[in-house]
């Protein structure tokens, strides 16, 4: 049979097409997650609508299994793979970010369990979209050419647009999804135009080759400046950098709270991974374009985010603006990227460190807010008064996360900020020093509104507050347990996270 077909096949494809070599071990986390997605879709089809409990568990197990395979990749020493001519790279940086995405994906699934199960939502599809989005993030961590980066961005964003509108009967949720979608599509269009200009200028989609092509010459042509700005602006939207942040507060407030946590942590981290790939691999030779742009973005983002956060009365909106400000801190090391005479990997490591700690403390804060809202049914800051009396455990947890977010030792946040300072001072440029000063000023402002929440929980009179304790479901407890442990450990023993981060290097690898 086959012998008869062979000559016909040879006629159709005279070139004798050879498939590319693929290292399947290095690919295993993505493969496992895709398989999980397919299994979840099938299970969803064959279960009744009121009986979707298994799907949540399956999705969680799949994500953990994928995380296990990230470990397998490291153990089997497949952690320096460069496939498809350098378009898809599995190195320590990519693996650390994959672990971060999978772990935050798992925590999001945990905090979604009761929220989605008890509300009137489409449950099976919810987890399918979360899994698809996390898969996009895994691809993003390894993508080293423009087309892979673009496709990964689409795969992680499109499910997120739809998840933001998941509370279908609520106008606010519809508004959240609509705003996120329209602004996102616009940013993507601008970014794609920049990518096409880059391709036109360099004739290649590989970031390393783009860097080689644009690094020549003392003065960049005007069109290159435009192309770089357009591409970076597209990701500025994704990480909600000012002035591209306008979608964030409304989307965060309107979306289901677990989705908000997902957007604020995982989606933002994915945007930063793409920014780091672009800045440290693609545009490293053009610090004269990237540095001023990133300086302005970072300074604006942290200042505007913090100033508006001061005036918020809704805790989710407050976290939205605080997330904007935190993105500003993380953009700061990009403003010193490519300074001559410094190791760019210091900046890479500082951002990776910040992302790891930020993920833990922010997800934890959202988990507590969701747990408290199960009783109060509100996200107003005033509704939290007296929390220390009726739910001391939750209130203490939230205090830990907020202290950490403010950067006060001994919790993780201080080390995250410290590593950013380290990167800024190592560069020893005026841009670095000014951003460091701005960062200190902003940390003080931020501490004020973080601590205000603690004050409301501890000292506001809780006269007519119902004193029955809050029942916290076990999945939320596990989520809070993971995040509290990470937040405290990274603060007390920062060597853990710096050990991880120090193996992350983007520059000088991937050829």
């Amino acid at each position, binding site marked *: 049979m086959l012998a008869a077909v062979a000559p016909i096949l040879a006629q159709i494809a005279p*070139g004798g*097409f*050879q*498939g*590319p070599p*693929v290292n399947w071990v290095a690919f295993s986390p993505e493969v496992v997650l*895709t398989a999980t*997605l397919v299994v979840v*879709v099938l299970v969803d089809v064959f279960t009744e609508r009121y009986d979707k409990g298994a799907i949540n568990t399956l999705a969680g197990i799949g994500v953990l299994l994928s995380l296990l395979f990230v470990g397998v990749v490291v153990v089997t020493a497949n952690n320096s793979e460069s496939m*498809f*001519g350098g*378009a*898809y790279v599995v190195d320590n940086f990519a693996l650390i970010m994959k672990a971060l995405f999978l772990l935050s994906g798992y925590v999001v699934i945990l905090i979604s369990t009761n929220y989605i199960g008890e509300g009137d939502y*489409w449950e099976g*599809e919810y987890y*399918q*979209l979360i899994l*698809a*989005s996390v*898969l*996009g993030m895994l*691809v993003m961590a390894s*993508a080293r050419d423009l*087309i*892979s980066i*673009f*496709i*990964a961005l*689409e*795969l992680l964003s*499109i*499910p997120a*647009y*739809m*998840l933001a*509108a*998941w509370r*279908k009967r609520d106008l606010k949720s519809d508004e959240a*999804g609509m705003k996120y979608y329209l602004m996102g599509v616009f940013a993507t269009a601008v970014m794609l135009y920049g990518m096409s200009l880059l391709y036109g*200028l360099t004739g290649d989609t590989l970031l390393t080759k783009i860097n080689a092509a644009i690094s020549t010459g003392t003065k960049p*042509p*005007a*069109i*290159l*400046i*435009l192309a770089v700005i357009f591409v970076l602006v597209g990701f500025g939207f994704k990480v909600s950098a000012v002035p591209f942040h306008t979608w964030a507060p409304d989307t965060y407030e309107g979306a289901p709270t677990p989705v908000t946590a997902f957007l604020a942590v995982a989606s933002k981290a994915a945007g930063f991974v793409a920014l780091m790939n672009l800045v440290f691999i693609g545009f490293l030779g053009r610090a004269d374009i990237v540095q001023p742009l990133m300086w302005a973005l970072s300074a604006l983002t942290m200042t505007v985010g913090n100033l508006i956060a001061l005036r918020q009365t809704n805790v989710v909106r407050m976290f939205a603006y605080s997330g904007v400000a935190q993105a500003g801190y993380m953009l700061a090391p990009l403003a010193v990227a490519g300074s001559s005479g410094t190791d760019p990997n210091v900046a890479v490591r500082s951002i990776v460190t910040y992302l790891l700690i930020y993920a833990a403390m922010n997800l934890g804060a959202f988990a507590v807010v969701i747990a408290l809202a199960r009783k109060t049914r509100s996200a107003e800051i005033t509704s939290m008064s007296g929390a220390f009396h009726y739910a001391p455990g939750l209130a203490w947890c939230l205090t830990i996360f907020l202290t950490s977010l403010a950067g006060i030792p001994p919790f993780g946040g201080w080390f995250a900020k410290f590593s950013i300072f380290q990167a800024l001072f190592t560069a020893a440029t005026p841009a670095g020093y000014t951003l460091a000063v701005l960062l200190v000023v902003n940390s003080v402002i931020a501490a004020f509104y973080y601590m205000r929440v603690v004050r409301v929980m501890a000292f506001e009179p809780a006269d007519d507050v119902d004193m029955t304790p809050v029942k916290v479901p076990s999945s939320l407890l596990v989520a809070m347990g993971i995040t509290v442990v990470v937040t405290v450990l990274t603060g007390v023993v920062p060597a853990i996270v710096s050990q991880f981060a120090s193996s992350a290097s983007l520059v000088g690898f991937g050829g």
Partner: protein
Amino acid sequence: MTNAPTYLPEYIMFGLIASSMVVAAVRVVTTKNVVHAALWLVLVLGGVAGLFILLASEFTAITQVLVYIGAIVVLFLFGIMLTRAPLGKSADLDNNVAQRIVGALVGLSLLGVMVYGLVNRWSDQKIELVGSSTRQLGQTTEQISDSIFSTYLVPFEVVSVLLLAALIGAIVLARRD
């Protein structure tokens, strides 16, 4: 690239297609009828396909026709008809004068910046298409198919997951419950 041949017929066709595209694109935003706007858009997108044919990349041209005209504009028209939107002229399709002026200013300044950038970089260069004089019909299609299944295998596979996710999400959001 002084030896690059002059493609006179191509230049003439380019001028014709490009100018009709500009006219059609202006009509897309100025017409007061949504259906007409969608049909003008067909002309713009068809022009893009024509430009791709001039560049001897027939696969991209056919994809352009299939995807943009065949799927997206048809989806627009179905969307307009199924949502009971007014089919004739509608006055509220336009923004007020102040918004129109701001929009025009932004558009024109962007045009100025882009034109400056492009002219500044490429005005003194003659770009010869790689092997365009010797290329045979179907050759670019073969190259594209080869690179999809070798260099760009990951994006190609990832797109299928993306389509699955988009399908699932769209059904959930659109269905009545």
